[in-house]
């Protein structure tokens, strides 16, 4: 494998080679020390030690979250699972150790910072058109892991950069089919799910060997300049609710009161009814009783009743008795002491 092509590959390979190279160098030093101590047999010893160091450089360890991809002269010959393994030493075989179970996060929506970008450009960069020709700014996080190490390593140049571009494209495409209100509120989950599905389909189509485990829509906001208007809609919604609640409070206040009042009126009329009937019954009864007594001796009772009431009347009355034997009250004008009317007590005296 030429050093040139080694640079093209993703980086796990040098990471595992460096400690074994350090061991190789220390072996070299050791062998020099031995050389000075043991003159004569030195060359053979050096060669032997070098050979041991070279051969042992092929030992490598695959971590539990990794997969070992063994290349013989650049050709993929073996895939090893976690544990200690051996490969033929450089320059025959090399090993790549991609982390296959690790879930990686990719943040979308962070603007590309080029020197020429102005603030407006940056903001413009993260904006996207919605299905109803509005503009939103959306961020999302993509969780992904390697599905197929071979494809991931060998099928796509710079798979992570490609993933970012494809993910952005997928998100924008889905947003471009969704109306703004839906994208901002009730369809968020759907947008995220559709983005994930589209992204996965695109990745599979290009043999990327990447599995998108989750797309999370983090922020979907209208652009800064119009955010006030959007917030006002929220406020209006709250106002609407408040107005209605107030009206309901009013209704809840007056209706029970009205019912109370109605019940009051009802009770009052019932009371009146009872009263009137009771009184009538009382009157009737008393009349009946009196009638019964009257019926026993009509003449006397009638006179007695008559005289009793005249008694009562005359007791309280200011009386003027005029004896007009000459029939009627013509001729003289009867004097009525109206001034005494207010003093019946004084007027009563001479009457008795």
């Amino acid at each position, binding site marked *: 494998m030429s050093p040139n092509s080694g640079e093209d590959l993703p980086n796990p390979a040098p990471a595992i080679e460096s400690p074994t190279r350090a061991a190789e160098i220390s072996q070299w030093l050791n062998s020099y020390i031995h050389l000075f101590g043991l003159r004569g047999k030195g060359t053979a010893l050096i060669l032997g030690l070098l050979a041991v160091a070279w051969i042992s450089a092929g030992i490598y360890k695959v971590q539990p979250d990794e997969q070992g991809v063994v*290349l013989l002269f650049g050709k993929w010959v073996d895939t090893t699972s976690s544990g200690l393994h051996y490969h033929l030493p450089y320059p025959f075989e090399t090993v790549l150790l991609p982390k296959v179970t690790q879930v990686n996060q990719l943040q979308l929506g962070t603007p590309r910072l080029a020197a020429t970008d102005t603030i407006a450009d940056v903001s*413009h960069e993260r904006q996207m058109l919605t299905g109803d020709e509005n*503009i939103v700014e959306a961020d999302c996080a993509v969780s992904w892991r390697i599905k197929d190490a071979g494809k991931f390593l060998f099928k796509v140049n710079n798979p992570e950069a490609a993933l970012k*571009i494809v993910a952005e*494209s997928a998100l924008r495409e889905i947003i471009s*089919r969704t109306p703004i209100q839906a994208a901002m509120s009730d369809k968020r989950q759907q947008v995220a799910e559709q983005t994930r599905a589209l992204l996965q389909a695109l990745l599979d189509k290009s043999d990327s060997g990447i599995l998108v485990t989750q797309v999370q829509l983090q922020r979907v906001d209208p652009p800064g300049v119009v955010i006030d208007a959007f917030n006002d809609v929220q406020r209006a919604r709250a106002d609407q609710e408040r107005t209605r609640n107030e009206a309901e409070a009013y209704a809840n206040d007056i209706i029970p009161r*009205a019912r109370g009042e109605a019940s009051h009126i009802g009770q009052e009329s019932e009371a009146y009814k009872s009263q009137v009937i009771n009184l009538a019954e009382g009157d009737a009864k008393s009349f009946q009783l009196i009638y019964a007594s009257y019926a026993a001796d009509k003449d006397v009772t009638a006179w007695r009743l*008559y005289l009793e009431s005249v008694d009562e*009347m005359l007791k309280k009355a200011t009386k003027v008795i005029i004896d007009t034997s000459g029939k009627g009250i013509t001729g003289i004008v009867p004097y009525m002491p109206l001034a005494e009317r207010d003093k019946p007590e004084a007027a009563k005296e001479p009457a008795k």
Partner: protein
Amino acid sequence: MSAKSRLVMGAAAFFLLWLLLTTLYTVSEVQQALIVRLGAPIGVVNEPGLKFKLPLVDSVIFYDRRLLTLEPAVEQVILGDQKRIEVRTYTRYRITDPLRFYTAVRTVELAEPQLAQLVSSSLRRELGQVALPSLLSEQRSNIVELIQREVADKAKDVGIEVVEVRFHRADLPLETSQAIYDRMTSERQREAKELRAQGFEWAQEIQAKADRERTVILSEAQRQAKITHGTADAEANQILSSAFGKDPQFYKLYRTLQTYRQALANAGPTIVLSPDTEFLRYFKTGPGTLTKH
């Protein structure tokens, strides 16, 4: 060993090493190689591994075998409805025919501008026929599909397989954003106004309904009360008249006497009496008439 034979052996070893280095080369899993003999391409090596070539006359050109991504700069495109949009595309391609690629464009650096040009012209042609709303719909993928097919067709000639052409982004240019913002703002204002007015509507409705209900409840109660009053009075009349009806004559007397006794007496009246009244008969005549009577 003589010095001469050492020299020969050394030279032989060097020669062998040189021969190895110039005849052997490796093709990695991500590469493909084109063998060029004296300037003329003669063969392609697709299989990775250790390979041989002739020294001096053969040279090897490596090409990437993986999927490559081309992302040209943003460009403004005029749509069918005269709206301008900013489009950024990306193209994913791989070199499938190194021989043709070598003769046509030679290097990736030289190929990319050409490919970008292909995409751009195809993009302008296709987008020139559609309106913005259709770009913001399911149709988008069809349009993209068309562009991809066109580009893929043409790129075949230079040994490139175009796997995918897509919009990275398609946005309105910054200059038209303000107009969109204004529209968005006015739309929101409309919505907010409507919401508030609707709240007022609801409130009015609820209040009026409550007021009506109150009036209904009260008037029903009053109606009932009136009926009850009437019933009570009627019943009382019934009771009284059935009692008094036994002897109306006596009732008149009895009731009149009650009035004399209560109402008239309590008023403290001044009474003018005629001695002719039956009541004053004895007052006038004395008890003499009693026997006669």
